[in-house]
């Protein structure tokens, strides 16, 4: 139970922090809980997609060519996991009648990402023990959220636009950004060399700072702007 709490708490704290900064208070807890659960469930299909890339293409983490290894991390976990998170958001948030502000998109995306990361962490706990769980909870849970948050923000902007091509461009831009940053993080962690690995931590730190800087600048006038459009 304690370990479950350790796996859960950083993610919950992050979403709570983001929700608390919302003015007016952000999304309903029930919706966020549902997104969190769906994000956790989405970890399964994401792993199947990763496995399919490893099995049916030359891209896999033990490939002799560096390009193939990098390709695996970018197009495997990087793309697949973000596609699956986007699919959850598209299934739940996108068709909703209620308006969606960029900041609401941010909180929803963070909930999905954190649910995904927490379930992943629980499996790592089983295999690698508590020390790994603690490290992953502090690093990987925020990392997943930081990759997906820009996607959620852009989804909020996309909902506010009129033309379908603008919506499409914003959604695609969000997905590409999330997949590239996620893939880059995995590549840095997979390459040999302590300093290269540390660059991954630096990447997460920089992304976290960038998101902190952007938080007050992300529009929050959620229900009104779209409803009045």
């Amino acid at each position, binding site marked *: 139970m304690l370990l479950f709490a350790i796996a859960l708490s950083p993610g919950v704290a992050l979403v709570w922090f983001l929700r608390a900064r919302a003015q007016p208070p952000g999304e309903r807890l029930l919706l966020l809980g549902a997104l969190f659960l769906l994000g956790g469930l989405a970890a399964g299909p994401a792993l199947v997609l990763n496995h399919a890339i490893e099995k*049916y293409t030359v891209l896999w983490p033990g490939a002799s060519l560096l390009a193939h290894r990098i390709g695996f991390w970018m197009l495997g976990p990087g793309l697949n996991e973000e596609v699956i998170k986007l699919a959850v958001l598209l299934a739940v948030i996108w068709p909703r009648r209620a308006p969606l502000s960029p900041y609401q998109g941010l909180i929803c995306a963070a909930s999905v990402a954190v649910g995904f990361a927490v379930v992943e962490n629980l499996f790592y706990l089983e295999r690698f023990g508590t020390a790994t769980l603690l490290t992953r909870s502090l690093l990987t849970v925020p990392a997943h959220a930081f990759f997906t948050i820009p996607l959620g923000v852009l989804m909020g902007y996309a909902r506010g636009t009129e033309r379908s091509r603008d919506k499409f461009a914003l959604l695609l831009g969000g997905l590409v950004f999330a997949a590239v940053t996620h893939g880059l993080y995995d590549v840095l962690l997979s390459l040999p060399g302590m300093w290269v690995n540390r660059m991954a931590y630096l990447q997460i730190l920089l992304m976290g700072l960038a998101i902190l800087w952007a938080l007050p600048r992300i529009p929050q006038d959620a229900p009104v702007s779209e409803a009045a459009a």
Partner: protein
Amino acid sequence: MPHPQHNQGESQAREHYLRGNRFFRQRAWGRALAEWRQATRLRQPAPASHRRRRFAQLQAALALLVTVLVAYHVIYTVFPRDPFDLLTLRSEQDTRGWWERFLETGRPAPPSSGKLGIRDWWYQMRERMLAERRPERQRDANDPRGGIPERWADLMRRYGRLGPGGEWDLDLRLVSGNGLSRLGAFQQAVAVLQRGIAETDDPLQRGDLYTALANAYYYQGYQLQPDGLARYDLEMVRLAADAYGHALEIVPRAMSLGNMGWMHYLLGDYAAAEEFSRRALMRADHLEYVRLNLGLVYLVEGRIYDAFEQYRTVITRQPEDEVYLGGINDLRELVRDQPGRQPFAHFMIGILAAAQGDYSLAQRHLERFLSHPVPGQSWKDVAREVLASMDTKDLEP
């Protein structure tokens, strides 16, 4: 002309919206939100613009879906895996379900990736579920004797080994079976291992027991001759193959795959021998003895160039002497069992012996190869080159 009811709803919505704004300015977030929600509920957007907006949303989502599908199509088309690799994963003898076969990539787990895949998750969950179904006495962590036969527990207690915090993950039947095999007491080893298989619920433990059982059968049928070559009791080889088959259903280890390939070679099923050897090499490319077996299989099938490639690969890696000796002895057994029908076996012995530094053996076999009528002059040219490259002074008695 707008509908009058629509106008009324619109004005009420506007009132709530403005009231919400006032609350927002007074930092009464909850009340502001409630007003805005009410405004959203009351406001009935013009049907046409509402439909247009919903349609644009649907269009964008569909376009994104198509784009993602195209991206995946491009990935699988631009970076396809060698179809032969996938072919070797399919086997008529494979009785596993589709999901287990899907999980099998034929690739070893990279040592340093640190990323768990679906295969790891699946085995982890299966182990956990089986552990939960295990009888209570075997799971009781407070009882250090859990799962240990009473007689062993008595012995342990007598010698002071049974204390708190003892580790009882050790499979005593596996240890006993392997020990008895080493001592040459194969029948006893088989009996112990079979009993262990019947009594264990743990799939991984059962896999290890099956592997040990296969080894016991194989060595029971292995008869070393005075000339240093071996003869095999094929009935024992068949039993060993069955046991390896069971072990592979549980855990497809590279060494078990390689051994299974060797069993099939001895039984004369060369297609299966090739398939298992290739699967083993895909998982562990460094298993030179498996590569030598594969070369032997190709040789028997008449695929001389493929066989040569395997032997050449082993030579370029400069393995230990034991590896060369194993390969040479297998080839000598082939020459013994099929006299006069495998001239290329002499050629392969020659190149292996030359690489190992046993020039007299190399010379003897290369000359025997040259004396045979074989199709294609180029192989003989290679043999002559190898002969010429050897330092003939070392061959003087």
